Structures are given as structure tokens and as C-alpha cells.
């Protein structure tokens, strides 16, 4: 019971007031108590108390959590439901390994760079063509397969390790992340473009690996640590001249900056190095807002209505909400419209979209409707997983909006 013993006081602090019901989308959309934060917490407590043996239903309750973190900001008692779920997942992993689904493909694939590339291509290429043959099956469990983009070649193989500029003012280390490397390589190019247009030299280590978030989320701390150590050592030892470690994926960003500290809390000898690394991590919009963007260089000829979706890891992880909005509004002729519940989960939530697709599809449908209500032409966001999820939802609803990363929107505003 070790892991749960560590969080027992927090488990016991939940006084079942139900305040988190409104926060928890998996509850709101199902009306099922075991899919609520309060329900999950009481179940974890029952396991900790030895009153419940973890079984399949328990695993479902624990694995279906979006880890969106909304409950943590809503609870008047300061109980962090998402952290308790993380502890429960770790506990499950220690008891008997991870639930078969997670073990079988997704997590192992992410841990190995080679297999990951193949996985993305398989899913986007071959898998797509097979599934496409099945009439009407455009959406595999709510995921828009037909339009699932795959990079022809990983981004890391498309670019040199160093991209120089004429008068470098900054040196930026670019942590690309799995999605931008294998799927949305165009967005990675946009990031580089915006950085170089703003006098940043960009360093892109070729041997970077998955940040470890997916494994961490499912309780596999060992693999997560291996990846984290590799990432930290790569950037700090081999590329120490990079002033910052920049990522354009909010999820990676939150993992690199916050969760690495938690992950290595039990390794005091390595921890100072981790701290050094974490302090260097910056998300794309945060960084651009910080160094300042020369507005006079931004061009845009036709009026554009834009709205912004806050990824969970951006709003509650990195706590960055102003910067992307400010950057978008710097672009000429942009009419910015805020959507209802902009800061709520889009339903992607890592592997949830594949394994608990019924709820996640409902969550995405709500989001899609909120987007529609703004009459925006374009939805900007800061996380590739959200981008894919949102575009899928929008296409499925027969709507027209285009989803782009803030970096893409900005890159388009620079003349080549």
C-alpha cells in the first residue's frame, strides 16, 4: 500500500462535499458517480483501507480519468483528485503491471523512438488505408482516422542540428516532442520559423526522446525516468549553450518543468540537476511573449476571426493563459473571440480518447459546439494532441474551422 499510504491524508481530506462534480467532465457527461472525482477518491480510499480489492471496474474508474486537473482547482479543501488518480495508477502498476491495453501498444511504442515512428506511420498510413476500406468507418472511436496526419519523414531527420540566424540574440534548444516530430511536422517548422524571424538561433538535438509523460501517467515511473534522464542529460550536458529548452507542446512542457521534479524526488543526488533543467523549460508562447515580438513584421491581408483553446497542461499545468491570446491579437486584422469554457478539456486526454471513447467523444462534441458558437474561422491552441482532437471533432460535426498551433498562426503572418 506504500504509494497510497503516501497520499492517505489527502484521501482522507476529501469530505465528499461533491464540489468537484461540476469540474469533472467524465461525471457530467455520464451521470455516473464512479466516473466522478469524488467517486474515484472514495474508491482509492477503499483500496487503501483494504476494503476493496482492485478489479476491472476499479481500473476503469481510475484509467478513465482525463487527468485534466480541473477538480484540483475546484476543490475547496485543496484535494487534488488528479494526483490521487496518478498515485492509484502507480499503485496498480506496482501491484500487477499496467492494464493490458496500455501495455500492449501505446506505452511501449512511445518508449522506443524507432517503434514510435513506425507506430505513427502504421496508424496514419497502413492502418488508415485498411480502415478506410470499411464503409463508414472514418472515425475509429471518435478519432478522425482519415485525416490523421503523419510526417513523411520525422521532423528531426528533416532539419540540421543547428539553425543559424544573422544576428543571433538568443540561443534556443528546441525539444520537439513525439507529436511534432512524427505527425505535425509543419508545426515544428512554424516554431523554427517564428524563432528565427525573432533572431533566435535554434538548436535541435537529434537524439531527443519521448518526455515520458504517457508512461508516467499510467504509473510506469521506471520507463518515464529513463526517458527523463536522457532528456535532461542531452540538453544539459551536450547542448549546454542553449539558454532555454523550448517546447511547443503544453503536455511535454508541463512534464518537463513540473513532473520531472516529482519523478526524481527520491533521488536527492540527481535532483539539483533536474531543478536546473526544469528552470530552463519554456513553452513557445511563454517564450515569445517574454522576449517580445516585433509587431511591425507581422502581416495579414484578410480579416480573420480567431478563438483559443486552453490545453489542460497549458492552463492548469504551466498556468499560461495570457501569452497565447496576446500573441494572436498582435496579428493585424485578427478579431479575437473567447469561447465558452475555453479552459476545459477537449476530450483527447492521452489514451482516453481511444479507450474510453464514449465519454471523450461527448466531451469533444461539447467543445466543438462552443467553437461553433464563436463564429471563428480558426481555432488556435498550444498542444498537438488537442489540435488533432479538435480538428477531428470539427470535421465530424461538418464544421469548417481550421485548427492551428499558435506558432502556425504566427508563422503565416511572416513574409518569407
Amino acid at each position, binding site marked *: 500500500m506504500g504509494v497510497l499510504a503516501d497520499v492517505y*491524508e489527502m484521501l*482522507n*481530506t*476529501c*469530505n*465528499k*462535499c*461533491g*464540489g468537484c*462534480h*461540476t469540474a469533472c467532465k467524465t461525471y457530467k457527461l455520464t*451521470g*455516473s*458517480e*464512479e466516473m*466522478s472525482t*469524488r*467517486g474515484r477518491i*472514495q*474508491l482509492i480510499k*477503499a483500496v487503501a483501507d483494504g476494503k*476493496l480489492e482492485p*478489479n476491472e*471496474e*476499479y481500473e476503469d*474508474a481510475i484509467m478513465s480519468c482525463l487527468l485534466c486537473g480541473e477538480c484540483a482547482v475546484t*476543490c*475547496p*479543501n*485543496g*484535494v487534488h483528485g488528479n494526483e490521487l488518480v496518478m498515485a492509484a495508477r502507480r499503485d496498480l502498476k506496482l501491484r500487477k503491471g499496467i492494464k493490458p491495453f496500455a501495455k500492449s501498444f501505446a506505452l511501449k511504442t512511445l518508449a522506443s523512438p524507432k517503434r514510435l515512428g513506425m507506430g505513427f506511420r502504421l496508424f496514419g498510413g497502413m492502418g488508415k488505408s485498411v480502415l478506410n476500406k470499411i464503409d463508414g468507418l472514418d472515425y475509429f472511436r471518435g478519432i478522425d482516422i482519415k485525416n490523421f496526419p503523419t510526417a513523411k519523414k520525422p521532423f528531426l531527420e528533416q532539419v540540421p542540428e543547428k539553425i543559424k540566424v544573422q544576428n543571433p540574440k538568443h540561443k534556443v534548444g528546441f525539444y520537439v516532442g513525439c507529436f511534432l516530430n512524427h505527425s505535425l511536422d509543419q508545426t515544428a517548422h512554424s516554431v523554427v520559423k517564428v524563432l528565427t524571424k525573432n533572431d533566435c538561433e535554434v538548436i535541435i538535438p537529434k537524439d531527443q526522446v519521448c518526455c515520458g509523460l504517457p508512461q508516467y501517467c499510467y504509473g510506469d515511473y521506471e520507463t518515464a525516468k529513463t526517458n527523463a534522464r536522457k532528456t535532461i542529460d542531452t540538453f544539459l550536458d551536450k547542448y549546454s549553450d542553449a539558454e532555454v529548452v523550448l517546447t511547443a507542446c503544453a503536455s511535454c512542457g508541463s512534464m518537463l518543468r513540473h513532473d520531472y521534479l516529482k519523478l526524481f524526488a527520491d533521488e536527492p543526488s540527481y535532483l539539483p540537476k533536474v531543478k536546473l533543467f526544469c528552470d530552463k523549460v519554456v513553452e513557445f508562447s511563454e517564450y515569445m511573449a517574454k522576449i517580445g515580438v516585433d509587431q511591425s513584421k507581422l502581416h495579414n491581408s484578410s480579416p480573420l476571426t480567431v478563438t483559443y483553446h486552453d490545453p489542460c497542461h497549458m492552463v492548469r499545468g504551466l498556468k499560461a493563459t495570457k501569452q497565447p491570446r496576446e500573441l494572436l491579437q498582435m496579428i493585424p486584422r485578427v478579431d479575437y473571440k473567447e469561447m465558452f469554457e475555453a479552459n476545459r478539456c477537449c476530450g483527447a486526454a492521452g489514451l482516453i480518447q481511444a479507450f474510453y471513447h464514449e465519454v471523450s467523444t461527448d466531451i469533444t462534441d461539447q467543445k466543438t459546439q462552443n467553437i461553433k458558437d464563436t463564429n471563428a474561422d480558426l481555432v488556435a491552441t498550444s498542444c498537438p494532441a488537442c489540435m488533432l482532437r479538435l480538428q477531428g471533432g470539427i470535421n465530424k460535426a461538418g464544421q469548417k474551422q481550421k485548427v492551428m498551433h499558435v506558432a502556425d498562426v504566427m508563422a503565416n503572418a511572416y513574409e518569407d
Partner: protein
Amino acid sequence: MLSQAVVKRLKEIVGEKNVVTDKVGLLTYGYDGTLLSGEALGVVSPTTTEQVVEIVKLMNEQDIKLVPRGAGTNESGGTIPSEKSVVISFTKMTKIHEIDTENFVAVVEPGVINFDLQVELAKKNFYFPPDPSSFKASTIGGNLGECSGGPKCFKYGVTRDYMLGLEVVLPNGKVIQTGGRNFQSEPGYDLTRIIVGSEGILGLVTKVFVRILPIPRAKKTMLALYDKVEDASQTVADIVAAGIIPTTLELMDNLLINTTEDFTHAGLPRDAGAVLIIEVDGYPEDMDGQVKTIGEIASKIAKEFKVAQTAVEVDQIWTSRRSAFGSVARVRPSYGVNDITVPRSNFPKAIGGVLKVAKDFGVTIGVVAHAGDGNLHPLILFDQRNKEETETVHAAEQALCMMALDLEGTISGEHGIGLVKKKYLDKEFTPAAMEAFRKIKRSFDPSNRFNPGKIIDL
């Protein structure tokens, strides 16, 4: 355990995924806002009135009891499963059938969450006045089950005052409609008012006709800060004596100011002994006069009086107040909520009584009150794992109830009786009155099928 055949029948009625019989599911429907828990044989979530009727008939055949449940936030043990019972959860009956702004009526299913209804109404510039602090989670069915109150009830009344009519499935499986969309009462008994506040022991509500009001054109929110909670209670009595009826008159003591500040950072002074949140609403031109009068009364005793200037400030004040119950586990993990209510003029005496109980029993009590209604929620904080302490808390709770009765008050203002307050009910009512309760229960539910053991034993 439910037999395979019964489970199969239930699944035929409501669909596979709306029946729960596994241990995990049962565990999560076994608790509510109290420290109690129980385990049902199953949980069934209907989506239509017809399904509810079928369930009632099947359970009658099988001699299984039904425990109705909304969001399970009640503070009286009202949804704790009894022996050999099935929980009937209304959280999947969430349709808002109609919002009729011409006739000031909305027709909703019982599982609609109070807040979700408010959001829809606000789009049409209307609202539903009963607003328990749990309104973001609690359902209309639960609100009427407990006859809930809220901050606005001083001026606007409680849930009962906004129920125009109900569709009810009776314990014999027959469906009746009480009242309707008309404001004038119907001929005959006022059955609506018998069902409202009956905590699910008389009938299952499947449709609700609620009265709605246009959002007032203007409102002002004020804060009065005091050194001592007794001082704040005096202002309450003074305002009432002056014949002024604010929309709300809410009190929080130092303990609650601090626990809610930890959460909201609204900027309430942590060293204040108590705060009164006072709100008035109406026509814009009436606001200044009312604020002035209240300010004059409060300033006689308060150490500070101020009017909230921005909407953000108002929001923060309300987030603080609404999270009061929720926030106390920051101090101790368990709490007992009391719900005593006294005539408004006795409010200062009741505050004195609470302080005395805290001292006599050596327990930590935080006070939050719908002060305008004379409704106090002394929250006794403790740790349920400590048996001895728990005993002391029970004794202190009893003393609080007795104190309220001595002041011509009641043991429960808005949280209901359920299991928790049952033992005090015959202290408040005469044997003849208790018998009248039982007779009403028997006439609706002769075989004691709905929510047995709540409020009264037969």
C-alpha cells in the same frame, strides 16, 4: 445480491449500462455528504417516467426497497442505502423540457443540476431563486426532496415556494400530477407541499414545474467586518428589527474566513472575528438608499463596512461563501454539520449558545449561517478515526439541538432529517404530531417501500 433474473429485468427496463451491481459501483452510491455509508443491492438509473414505473412495479414484486438519489450531497444521510434496497439514481434524467418566460414557469426532470438550470435561464434573463451553496452539484429533485434553502432565501423563500407542480410515481406504481403550471393553488389538498421536503419517502418525483423569476435589474453586495461573531449577530437583529429585507444576509466566523481564504484568496481579512455578506437587489434607483440605511445600521458595531465595486469582487465573495462547508477539511478531516434555526430575533442568543457549547465540550466549531433566516450551520470539526472525540462531538451536537429548541427554534432548517437528525425529531414534536407524520407516510406507502428508515420509523 440481486438474482440474475431481477438484474436481467432491470437491464431490459433501463438498458444495460444503467444498471450497476458490481462492488465498485455500489461503493460509490453508498455515501452522501455525511460520514455515514451503506451498500445497496444495486443501482438503477432510469431516463423516463415509464421506466421509473416499471422499476417500482418490479421492486414491489420482489419485495425490495427503493432509495431515491440525486447528486448525493445531502447532509442528513437521506440517500444512505437501507437494508435490501436498490438505489434509484435520477442523475440521468437531465432534460429541461421547457422554459416559459411568459408564464414564469420551467418544466424540468429531477436530475437537472440547479446550476445547469440557472445557466439556461440566464440566457433568457431569468433565474430560479433557491440556490443552496451546493447548487453546482445538487439536483432539482434533491433540492425539493430536502426543501433546500440558500443565500437568497431571506427575501425570496425556500425551494417549497418555487414548486408549482410535480409528477410523482407513487409506491404502488401509479403516476399522479400535483399542482401544475398555474400560480393559484389547485382545488383539494396541496399535495405538492406534502411531497416537497418529504426526502423521498412518499413518492418518486419524475417531473417538476418550477416557478422562475426575471433577474433583478440591479444588485449591490456589501461586506461588514467585525471583531467578534456576537457583534455580527447584533447587526443581523438590528437589520431585521428595522424592517429591511436584504436578498441575503450571510455570516461566516473567523475559522471559515480563514479556510475559505486558503482556497479563494478573495482578500477577506484573516484576523476578523466575523463577516456579514449582505446583498440587496431591485431597481437601480433603489440601490443607493438601501445601501445607505444598511451601512448606517452595520457601522454602529462593525469595524469596517464596504461595498463591492466590481463583478470580480462579488464573484470572489460568493465563491468564498459557497465553499464554506467544503473547505473545513483543511483544518480537520471530518465535520458534523448542524442546521439549527431560531426565530430571527433570537439569532444573537443562538450565536451565544453555540460559543457556549464549543467551550463546554471543548470542541472546535466554525459557524456559517444564513443569518437572515436565523439558520445556523455550526460545523463541528474532528477526526472520525478518533472514537472518543467522535463521541464528544455527538454529545455537542445534541446540546446544540436542545439549545435551538429552547430558543423556540428547530433542529433542521434546510438539510432535512434523514438518518442523522431522526433521533431528535420527537424532542421537537409531540407524540400526536409524530403519529400524524407516520399516518401520512402509511397512507402513501403502506408497505414502507420508499426510502425506509428516513425521518421516522414506522
